[in-house]
Structures are given as structure tokens and as C-alpha cells.
């Protein structure tokens, strides 16, 4: 077993830590008292990253990145989470949409759409889930009716992070009602400032409001704004979804789990109590998340896609993270609720417990991961 990072990765980690020390104050939360100031802070943050050449540095050279290896990208994910840096507003464009544009986009789309993502000028959001299409994503009902000039879109999307300040949305819409359910879909690139779009924020249990429901009321979309061909939407969507499950997600999770673990340990110490079985198990599971991330990463460095291992690791980290938060809350006792003050940056035992509930739902529910694992890893039949 060799867990050492390459020299290049270690040097990058040192440079990144120094840069974070110089550019991100530890109390940046305190400066974001309202949603507006939080958004402004993140906008500045995105520009800082872009100016430092860190924004999308793993992109291929031909698109303005440095073609860095998955290893450096993993270091980046880990260090950003370790420093609790904001995700930034451009993250969905950088991580999810851009690779799909590079793969499916026309020459003109690449030239027009990629540079403003890299320079943090255009913020993208993701229009996949709908009120009636969650885990069963291919059931989307949002219609895109073809006209001479392009499409007219009607319907609604939900759980749309960043919609309230996004400039554009990559939207999975149904263009053919008669085709088989996966075949009638098309990926559209839609201007969020178009007439007919309404955004309604959703208040979350952790005091934040990242999610929205977005309504499309006969929104006009030009003809050249399809990514991939008409009817190719499912293929493009799957490609985007595979970018959600890799070593970076697990390493980010483990960095946040370590933070929770330290607070849990401190709480035990403050009460003069031994950590006991709960602390032992939580520490072990936190460390195992790192080991599993390394397994994915080692595979990626050898040129293998995470495949079902990505699902297995996502299932493990999301459930372990919840167990950790639950254990810490149970140890803290009922007074934790008395001390709880909800707010966008609350970081107490109850807030962390509340926050982790989303982990087994977002990015593919645990049930969907179990379906993938039982089918592809264990080879079990579905019928």
C-alpha cells in the first residue's frame, strides 16, 4: 500500500495552503450577515480564484486550464474543504457543465461558453430535478416545443441551487412526447434572464436558502442552444452525473467530517467524558472515507473511471457522516436544542445534524446508490 502523493501534488498543496492563508480570512462567515453579502463575497472569491489561475486549473490546456492530473484536483478539493472555503458561484459551470461542453458542444459553443465560465463572468445552475422527477430523473415533464426559431419551454425545476443569481441554466427538457422516455430528452442551454422565468426560493432546515423552484412560462430558447443533438439529452445528463461522484467529493466530505470529529472530541473532553464507542467508530469511518477516496483516485490515476466504486463510496461517506453527526448530538444531550440558533452559518451540534440529512439525498439518494451497487457490483437482476 502506497499512500504517498507525488512531489508535484505535495508542492501544490503547500502553495495552495499559503495562498488560502493569504486570501481567505478565517472569520469570513462573520462578514456575510445577509444572503446578498454572502453572494457578493462568493462573487469576489470566484474572481480571486480566477485571477490566481485556480479556477478550473484542471481543465485541458486547449480550453485555458493547465491540464493538471486528477491528483492535483483531489488536493484542491481537500484543501478547499479543509479551509472551509466557500464553494463559489461558478462551481456547477466549472465542474459539471464545462466537461460536457468540451465533449458534446459545437466549436462555436466551446469558444463562446467556456471562457466566461473560467473567468467567473457567467454563473450556471443545473436544471435536472423536477417536483415529479427526483430519483427517476428521466421522467422530466418540462416541455420544449420546437418552433421555427428554436424552442418554447414550459414546466418547472426544483432543488435548483444558485438559481436566484445564476445567469444561465443547463436544462433537461422533453422535446418528444411520443419517443421512449429516455429518448425524448434534450439538453438546453437557457438564459436565466429570459422573459417567463420565475424563481421561488426554498427555506431549508439548516437555515440556508440555496435551493429554489424555477418556473418556465413559455420561455423562448434559440435553436443553437442545444447541447448535443435533439433527443441526446439523456446521454449528456448521464455524462454530467458521472462527474458528481469521484474522489473529490469523498475527500471534501472527509475534510468536513474531520472538522465535526474534532468538535465532537472537544465536547467529550469538556464534559470530562471518554469518547467511547461512538468516537472510536466515527474516527475510524472518517479515516476510511479517505482510504476509499484514495482507492478511487489511484484508479483514476491509472486511467479508470470510478464506476460503481463511486456509488459505493458516496453511499459510505454520506451515511457515515450522518452517523457521526447523530452520535455527537446524542452525546451532547437535549440541551443542544436549547443552544441551537438556526442561521446560514450555524456550526453547532444540532446545525451539523440538520445539515447532514441532505447528504444521503443530494447527488443521488442512498437508495439509488444501492440500486447501482446491487446491479453493477453484485450483478443482481432488476426483474
Amino acid at each position, binding site marked *: *500500500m*502506497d*499512500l*504517498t*502523493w*507525488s512531489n508535484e501534488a*505535495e508542492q501544490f*498543496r503547500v502553495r495552495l*495552503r499559503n495562498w488560502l492563508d493569504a486570501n481567505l480570512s*478565517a472569520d469570513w462567515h462573520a462578514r456575510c450577515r445577509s444572503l446578498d453579502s454572502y453572494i457578493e463575497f462568493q462573487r469576489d472569491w470566484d474572481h480571486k480564484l480566477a485571477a490566481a489561475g485556480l479556477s478550473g486549473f484542471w481543465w485541458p490546456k486547449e480550453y485555458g486550464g493547465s491540464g493538471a492530473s486528477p491528483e492535483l484536483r483531489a488536493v484542491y478539493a481537500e484543501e478547499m474543504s*479543509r*479551509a*472551509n472555503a466557500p464553494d463559489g458561484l461558478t462551481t456547477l459551470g466549472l465542474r459539471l457543465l464545462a466537461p460536457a461542453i468540451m465533449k458534446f458542444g459545437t466549436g462555436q459553443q466551446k469558444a463562446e461558453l467556456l471562457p466566461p465560465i473560467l473567468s467567473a463572468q457567467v454563473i450556471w445552475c443545473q436544471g435536472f430535478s423536477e417536483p415529479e422527477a427526483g430519483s427517476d430523473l428521466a421522467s422530466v415533464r418540462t416541455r420544449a416545443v420546437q418552433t421555427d426559431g428554436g424552442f418554447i419551454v414550459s414546466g418547472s425545476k426544483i432543488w435548483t441551487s444558485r438559481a436566484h443569481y445564476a445567469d444561465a441554466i443547463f436544462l433537461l427538457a422533453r422535446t418528444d412526447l411520443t419517443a421512449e422516455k429516455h429518448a425524448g430528452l434534450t439538453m438546453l442551454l437557457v438564459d436565466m434572464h429570459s422573459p417567463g422565468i420565475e424563481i421561488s426560493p426554498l427555506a431549508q432546515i439548516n437555515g440556508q436558502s440555496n435551493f429554489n423552484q424555477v418556473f418556465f412560462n413559455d420561455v423562448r430558447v434559440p435553436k443553437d442552444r442545444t447541447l448535443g443533438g435533439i433527443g441526446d439529452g439523456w446521454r449528456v445528463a448521464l455524462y454530467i452525473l458521472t462527474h458528481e461522484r469521484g474522489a473529490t467529493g469523498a475527500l471534501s466530505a472527509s*475534510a468536513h467530517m*474531520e*472538522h465535526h*470529529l*474534532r468538535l465532537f*472530541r*472537544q465536547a*467529550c*473532553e469538556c464534559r470530562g*467524558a*471518554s*469518547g*467511547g*464507542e*461512538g*468516537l*472510536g*467508530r466515527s*474516527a*475510524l469511518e*472518517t*479515516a*476510511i472515507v*479517505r*482510504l*476509499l477516496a*484514495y*482507492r478511487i*483516485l*489511484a484508479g483514476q*490515476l491509472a486511467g479508470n473511471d470510478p464506476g460503481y466504486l463511486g456509488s*459505493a463510496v458516496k*453511499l*459510505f461517506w454520506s451515511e457515515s457522516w450522518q452517523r457521526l453527526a447523530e452520535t455527537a448530538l446524542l452525546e451532547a444531550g437535549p440541551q443542544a436544542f436549547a443552544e441551537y440558533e438556526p442561521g446560514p452559518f450555524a456550526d453547532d451540534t444540532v446545525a451539523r445534524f440538520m445539515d447532514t440529512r441532505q447528504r444521503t439525498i443530494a447527488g443521488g439518494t442512498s*437508495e439509488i*446508490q*444501492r*440500486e447501482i*451497487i*446491487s*446491479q453493477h*457490483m*453484485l*450483478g*443482481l*437482476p432488476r*426483474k
Partner: protein
Amino acid sequence: MDLSPTADDVMVAHTARQILRQGEALDHKRASARLESAGFLQLDLLEPAELSAASAVAREVGAANAPLLYADALVRVLLAARVKGVPSELGLLGIGRRTGPRSAVVRSYPAEICWALVPNGPVDWELVPITDDIVMAQSSFEAGIMTLRLEWGRETAVREVRYAEPRVQLAYLAVCDAELIGAAAELLDRTVAHVKQRTQFGRPVGSFQAVRHRLADGAVALGAAESALLYALNLLANGHGRNAELWVRGAHAYAAQTCLDISKLCFQMHGGMAFTQEYWVHRWMRRIWQTAMWHGSPQAMMASVGAALTYADALEEFVAVGRPLPGGSY
């Protein structure tokens, strides 16, 4: 960065599998007392770097549900075989007794299984099973030291095993883990095969989500337990002190609990047949429960690890998996 097993370990595991199949044909499997078997592992005499090979073998032994003593013999024989053609090394590795200029007897206790290691060419060794050689074998356990006495023909071998030494206990714990994980992995594989072919309501029971999801959870937990074991072995082989000990104990508690859960899950998946003497599932279940509780309950062991991790520096060291720089965070 590389987390795959070494080519050597893969080869050793493969050889072990072959020998276990041979053993099955010879009907050499016999249940035997676990405590006595511990002494025969002679892990105090293993080089730390050989532990991963020992674990690879133990995993195969668990998968075959072969008696542990069988494993003891195999571990030692295979490690000796890796030394290749250096008979003087045999003593160092704690292997039974040399019986000639270039041969040795490797045995297990009780004496149902006995292997002679004989040279085959200038560098290779060959294992030859012998069954009628040993006339007496004894062991005694006193003050943490096990003494083994073995007589055959006019030869006598006596060995002392300092089982109470922490490093030996840790090594043994890690090898037990591997055995547990091997047994649980085999049980899970066989159960997956079973639910694919067993039909109810006109379809394979493995197509029902109630079944699929439980098996998926079992497979993920087992992978996690195995990752923890490999890391613990890695620390132990590199001689890390307190952290290695906490990892071995933590990985053991985790693997033990995981394998107990898997055994119950798999038992359930076989339905009523699992409750019959003639069916095979209960044998794996017993093996797993026996091995898992050999060092106390998993909960108690995990609690002792948690108590040690209540100290900040211990926790930092524990979670700093493969991290080149100190890992404090926000």
C-alpha cells in the same frame, strides 16, 4: 499512490487457495481448539513485512472455512516458501522442525494435518502432506507463554511462543481480521449467487429491493472493513507504535461487527434451509461469530479505541491517513 495488493501477496494467496483445495480433497478439515491454535501462529517470529502475506493467507482460510490451525501451518509454510531454498531461515520463521538437510515438517495441532516441506529443485520448495508421522503433540500455556512440544520418530521439537507480547497480539488480531473478512466475503458471494437463482413470486428473490439493498450495504461495509485492515497492517508493518495499535484494534472491532452483521444478513437470505443442519450457511455463521468474539466484544474494543482517541494528539494522528502535512482545519 497505489492501494492494490503486492504481486507477492497475490501469489501467496493463490498458492494458499490451491493448497486449501488439496486439503479439502484429503478431508483434512477438522474443528479444533482456538486458544491452542494461537500459539502456532508464531507471529512473534514473523518479519513485520510478512504480515500482509500472512493476512492474505488467513483471508483464504476464512473463505474456505478451513480450521484455523490449518491456517497456522499454511502461513508458516508459505512464508518459508517465499524465503526459497534457505533452510536455515526456517528456524527463524518458526517453522516446525527440520527433518533432514533440506526438508522440514510443518504441522498443525492436533496432528491431523501435517505438511512436509521438501526441496524441489535448487530454489523451490514443495509441500507434501504426511498424516502418520507425529506421535505426540502437547501444549501448555503459562504466564503468557505457550510451550509447544512435538515428537515424531526419534525427533522432538519444542517451541515457546510469547503470545502475551503486544506486537504478537496485534499481529494475531490483524490476521484474525483477515480470516473474518475472507469468511464474510465468501458467504456474501455465495449468498449473492443464491438469490440470483432462487425464485419466488415468479422472479429471482435477488431482484427484490428488500434483498438487493441489504446485500449492497453488506458489500460496501465489507469493502470499508477491508480498507481499514489493509491500512492497519501497513502501519504495523512500518512499526508505528500507539497509532498502529489503535488502528489494529479499531479495524478489528469494525471488521468484527461488520462480519457479524453480514453473517446474519446472509443467513436470512437463505430462508428456512439456513436453519437446517445439512445446509452449509450455519457453518460460516458459527465460524464468523467465534472468530469475531475471540478478543472480546467488538463494542468493548471500539469503546477502548474511542477512549484513547479522546486525546487530541491521538485523534490527529489517527485520522492523518496518507497526509503529508498536519491536517488541522477550520
